[in-house]
């Protein structure tokens, strides 16, 4: 592997109307090559209709050490879940 190649995160939209989901990462020399690699590595079995690639270095992540401060306070607030509504059968993908 050439060390000039950087890591890209790959997001695939499986069908029109759905969101792009993170599927993995790969190495490429630039964005065009990253799209082609993503096509060859992650859509061989018709997994997608759209690809996004983002340089991994551009992703800003939350700090695991701050997990308590960020996520603990939500734990006892179940009333924030939309579980008190009946979802019609016709509505998919929720």
């Amino acid at each position: 592997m050439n060390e000039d190649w950087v890591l890209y995160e790959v997001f695939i939209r499986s069908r029109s109307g759905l969101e792009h989901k993170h599927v993995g990462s790969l190495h490429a020399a630039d964005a065009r090559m990253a799209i082609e690699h993503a096509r060859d590595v992650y859509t061989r079995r018709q997994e997608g209709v759209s690809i996004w690639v983002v340089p991994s270095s551009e992703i800003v992540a939350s700090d695991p050490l701050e997990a308590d401060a960020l996520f603990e306070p939500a734990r006892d607030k179940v009333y924030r879940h939309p579980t008190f509504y009946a979802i019609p059968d016709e509505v998919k993908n929720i």
Partner: protein
Amino acid sequence: MSATAQAGVAQVSTAERVQYLLRLADTSLIAGQRLAELLGHGPTLEEDLALGNISLDLIGQARLLLSLAGRIEGNGRDEDALAFLRDAPQFRNMSLAEQPNGDFAATIVRQCLLDAWQLETYESLTGSREEALADIAHKAVKECRYHWRFSAGWLVRLGDGTEESHARVEAALGALWRFTDELLTPDALDARMAVCGIGPAPGLISERWEARVGAALAEAKLQKPPHQHYPWHGKRGVHSEHLGHLLTEMQFVPRAYPGATW
């Protein structure tokens, strides 16, 4: 099929139609087998998969075309009989397709020159009067567009890359250019196919191929090599020594174990 189309196909013999299909089928098959040799040897995991995907596309095209050739021939030969039980002189692939992989630059140059030819050829064949061939061309042309995108992209990266990559791709271009004459110069059979509306009009493929490849070479900062004549044409069954070695590997299992399935 319309009356005029029937008349067009009827102008040529069954043997000629089969020979023409074998040129297309064998070129895809042999190029696909060459790329399959690289499985597990690609420079990176991603490129390895890309080359493998292209190989599978080409072998898929070959299966459809060989099946069609076998049906038209009418002697009961299926795709497997045609792929595995013919010897080198019966193969009708373009000589370029059988050239060894060499280094990555040689593989890319071979694919680039071939992909441009396949893309323009299948694009044109979507209007073929051989209707089953037109159907196959509709499928193949989408695959070929991606193959070209891949190989031309790499041609530019290597040509406009480092001193080393430029030198390697330039050497490969010089070595392989002589095989392009066969792609672009129609012989008697190509001319017959054009007249009856099965094959592309004379000169169409070479004009489009020159424009496509010329633009890619310019972007890759590579000089187009001078025209070279190569008289031994694979499409007429006269092959370089490389094809025999390739077939030995490709055909070994079905010949050693006839009828084996898995």
